């Protein structure tokens, strides 16, 4: 008897997990380089109920299985230090605390010492600081090569953005500030030649407002239906209790 009650409750809790994920996505609908969360549903174990061959399930469960791998739209910003990545790769940076991290948020800037950094001050790996007297106008090629004009107008190469890929991006550990750290589950970072760098653009969030709202509505309705099932189970127990008055 009580199994139906718990099956329905498990369904409610699964929808709650999904609603949390969708809310988080909606809050990040304008976050540069943000990838939506993927929520996976599954049914649970089946157990025998009475006669042989009669099996009843125990509800459903939801787990987050990492992030969307869809490419976010490239939006032009006309700012020379904005770079977007087209492809699955990541930009390697070194955080102020010395830890290496990967990011796709390419709103770069130059610090007081002429070094190329991300918005939060992490150093971009593979690029040398601007030499004294350089113009400060950076040109970034599709392969990530960074060049500038020197004092005499000649082109000065500053190195190359380090674009890497990992086997399992869902294994990356989020560090906040849209940065992620390598773990044993993600596999090592390897150079990724398939990803190209687009200067003057930023990658928009992969969250689509329309999809997220549809998910939210669907989730809410599924939640309501599971809660109706809880109510019905409760009513049935009340009726069963009424057999002996």
């Amino acid at each position, binding site marked *: 008897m009580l199994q139906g009650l718990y*099956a329905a409750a498990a*369904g409610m809790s699964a929808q709650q997990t999904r609603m949390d994920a969708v809310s988080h996505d909606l809050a990040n609908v304008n976050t540069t380089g943000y990838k939506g969360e993927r929520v996976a*549903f599954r049914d649970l*174990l089946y157990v025998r109920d009475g006669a042989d061959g009669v*099996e009843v399930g125990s509800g459903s469960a939801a787990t987050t299985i990492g992030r969307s791998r869809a490419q976010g739209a490239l939006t032009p910003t006309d700012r020379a230090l904005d770079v977007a990545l087209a492809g699955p790769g990541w930009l390697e940076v070194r955080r102020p605390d010395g830890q290496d991290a990967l990011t796709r948020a390419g709103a770069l800037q130059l610090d007081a010492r002429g070094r190329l950094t991300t918005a939060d001050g992490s150093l971009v790996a593979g690029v040398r600081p601007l030499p004294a007297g350089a113009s400060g106008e950076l040109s970034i090629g599709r392969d990530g090569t960074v060049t500038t004009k020197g004092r005499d107008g000649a082109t000065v190469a500053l190195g190359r953005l380090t674009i890497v890929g990992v086997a399992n991006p869902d294994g990356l550990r989020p560090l906040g500030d849209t940065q992620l750290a390598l773990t044993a589950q993600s596999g090592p970072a390897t150079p990724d030649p398939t990803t190209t760098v687009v200067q003057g653009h930023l990658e928009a969030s992969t969250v689509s407002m329309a999809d997220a709202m549809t998910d939210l509505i669907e989730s809410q309705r599924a939640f309501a*239906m599971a809660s109706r099932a809880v109510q019905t189970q409760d009513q049935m127990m009340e009726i*069963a209790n009424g057999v002996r008055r």
Partner: protein
Amino acid sequence: MDRGLSIAAAGMVAEQTRQTQLANDLANAATPGYKRDRTTQRSFGDLLLSDVRTGAAVGAVGLGPYADATTTDLRAQASRATDEPLDFAIQGDGWFQLRTLDGVRYTRNGQFTASAAGTLTDRSGNEVLGPGGAPVRVGADGRVDPAAIGAVALNRVQKAGEGLFTGQPAGPAPGVVRQGELEGSGVDPTRAMVEMIASLRSFEAGQRSISTIDQTLGRAASQVGNPAGTS
């Protein structure tokens, strides 16, 4: 004692099973690739009543229903687009093959991810197998060719829980694997809600029958045999 009591109780027990199943269906109304369950109810064998004096048959009396077997509605459901490179759906019949700790299992839920070794896995880390039985690899661009996954036809399909099924593979399936889509749940919410209400009322009717029979028996115990007007 009265046969009616056990008949009504059997009906209530059978409705309980149906109700548990409906609760499970409703909990999985949004689970991709979920297949809805149905429990068939059967009547216990009928008894033939006969007149004890003449031996003439009076007629049959049923002994109430019981939950007999669970069948799963395996029909393919409509897919919805997710535009996620590692979401797959099989259009038409067929099953994805997964290598689990308990051997090969099958699923219609194509919400996959990648392992650190670069193979395609489900959310529990079970490797997705290709048509040849070898694990499917995720390309350097983070994508998988849907043709590399391949759908297999199955006979004697049974639910194993956790979205997995067991069965006898029977060669390649006619279904086509499509990327960026997920198969919807097989639960029709409206129908499940209506069945839930019907089942609840049927359960209630069983309870009322028991109460009524109880009252009748009560009268029989306390009133029959009393002189008129003394009860």
